[in-house]
């Protein structure tokens, strides 16, 4: 016991998670922890294991080995609803909304509040409560939307707000956001910064799954880089550059990286003919699009 235990345990800690599908090892001993109110980014290529890890955290998959701790206490998420009941909510990449239904119905979809009429055996949906609660959570997010508007009439940002509002309505302590800007017409990183800041103010921890470096650097306090089913690096934003992380994502190491203070790796510098600005752009672009090239 060399490390002193921290004063407050992490909100959630995944420890040494293993998961295999047939012959494929999707997760090979992954550990991450997220502090209360923290914004944490999980970076990596496609098939790096980000989604599998989050499916373990949301109770969709059961790990072959490893443990989950919540507030320092060991717990299990045998089903998606068990995970949600313990305050872990998922905001899907496509937001998982039904366009034909209004905002309040979408917020409570699958978990509609009900009230008894004519005794305990006949129960109807409590739309008044749904409307009031929807108004409340969207106000907390500072994105007011009329609860009776059909979702098909909303903009991408508003749809995202409804999806996040859904998590807030059920007292989420940790919200997992899968590629949060992928379904916005313009990559609205600014808006995402606002929303995550708002969630932080509310004391809610956020995990952002992304392959976009700019996104992770803009919103996260800390991040972990995954590659081939393992965590290959954990950083505080500010300790590393985007270019370094881009290299880490694609090569899995920071080893052949020589820091000249301008964020350009040595191997790239040898190209010579390009100006250093071009190289930085090229690196950033490569980092952003490696995911796409593999898919």
């Amino acid at each position, binding site marked *: 016991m060399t490390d002193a235990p921290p004063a407050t345990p992490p909100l959630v800690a995944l420890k040494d998670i293993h998961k295999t599908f047939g012959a494929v090892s999707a997760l090979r001993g992954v550990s991450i922890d997220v502090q209360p109110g923290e914004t944490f980014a999980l970076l990596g290529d496609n098939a790096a294991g980000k989604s599998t890890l989050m499916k373990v955290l949301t109770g969709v998959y059961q790990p072959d080995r490893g443990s989950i701790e919540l507030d320092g206490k060991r717990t299990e998420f045998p089903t998606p609803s068990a995970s949600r009941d313990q305050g872990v909510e998922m905001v899907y990449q496509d937001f998982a*909304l039904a366009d*034909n*239904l209004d905002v309040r119905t979408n917020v409570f979809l699958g*978990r509609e509040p009900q009230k008894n009429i004519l005794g305990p055996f006949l129960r*109807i949906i409590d739309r008044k409560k749904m409307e009031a609660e929807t108004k409340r959570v969207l106000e907390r997010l500072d994105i007011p939307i*009329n609860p009776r508007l059909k979702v098909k009439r909303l903009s991408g940002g508003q749809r995202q707000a409804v999806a996040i509002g859904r998590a807030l309505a059920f007292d989420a302590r940790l919200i997992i956001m899968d590629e949060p800007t992928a379904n916005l017409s313009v990559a609205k990183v600014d808006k995402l910064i606002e929303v995550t800041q708002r969630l932080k103010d509310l004391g809610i921890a956020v995990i952002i799954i992304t392959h976009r470096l700019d996104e992770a650097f803009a919103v996260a306090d800390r991040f972990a880089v995954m590659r081939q089913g393992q965590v290959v690096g954990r950083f505080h934003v500010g300790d590393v550059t985007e270019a370094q992380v881009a290299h880490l994502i694609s090569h899995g190491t920071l080893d052949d990286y020589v820091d000249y203070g301008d964020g350009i790796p040595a191997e790239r510098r040898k190209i010579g003919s390009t100006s250093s600005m071009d190289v930085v752009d090229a690196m950033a672009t490569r980092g952003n699009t490696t995911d796409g090239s593999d898919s």
Partner: protein
Amino acid sequence: MSLMTQNIKALLGPADLKQGSAATKVKRFVGDYGILIFFALIVIFLAVAAPNFLTLNNLVNVVRQSSIIGLIALGMTFIMITAGIDLSVGSVVGLAGMTFALLAPASGGAFWLPLIVGLGVGLLVGFLSAAMVVWGGILPFLATLATMAIARTAALVITDGQVVSGLSGPAEWLGSGFIGPIPVPVIIFLLAALLCEFVLSRTKFGSHVYAVGGNEESAKKVGISTGRVLFMVYLIGGVTAALGGLVLTARLDGAAPVAGTGYELQVIAAVVIGGTSLFGGVGTIRGTVIGVLLLGVVMNGMNLMGVSSYYQQGVQGIILVLAVLLNRWKSD
């Protein structure tokens, strides 16, 4: 448009719905209320043009004639909101009606046994369709095309193609009895419609029916058991079709194995006229009742005015096209 303006517009909400040019407003009004207005115009026209139309007797008769298609259309509405379809309803009418006719005389005075068995037959066919759709992953159109053929075959085989006639008194009452001035089929239809309206618009299950039709993947992700919802709607469709078959048999005091042939298309037309989308996610029981009554009134009016029956199907077709065009202008 900036996000700010969008947010403000969203905040204003209902005002947002009313925005747009005058032409858009007219369109939306026509889209929302067109069928109702059309229905009212037809009634006014017939009240003037067909002398016997606006008598209590005739109006009750219209609803009674519509009640069988109406009962089937109630279940079809649930199915179509999930973006499904049920082609087997006509065959269920034949098979359930046949079962009822075979059991009714044998059961002496009581008709509850043939009633329950008849409805059970509908439930069984609905179960087969649901099993193919949910467990087999077969498209509803094909799954119910199969149950349509199977149920019809069953109806033909159990009587060797013969007509069965002569029910016992109580069973007949289901089709030709009255409670006060109101025919029993009308009461059955109205009660069933109220129940379906309640379930679809007020309950959790009803909400999930719309969610499955709107976006099945999203519904799954939020934890709705979409398979269970789909299963239920085909069971409901089977029961309401069977109920239609029982009323038809009771009304005719007998059953033919080919009874109900072609009903599926009339029912689908009525449901679509009532505003339900074939693509799912949209539709109401209120709308379906209007659709059924509209077709009923038009048929009745043409009969009263002595229009050749040759024209009747064509007129139904024209109304269907009109309704589909109007639905495009709906405001939501």
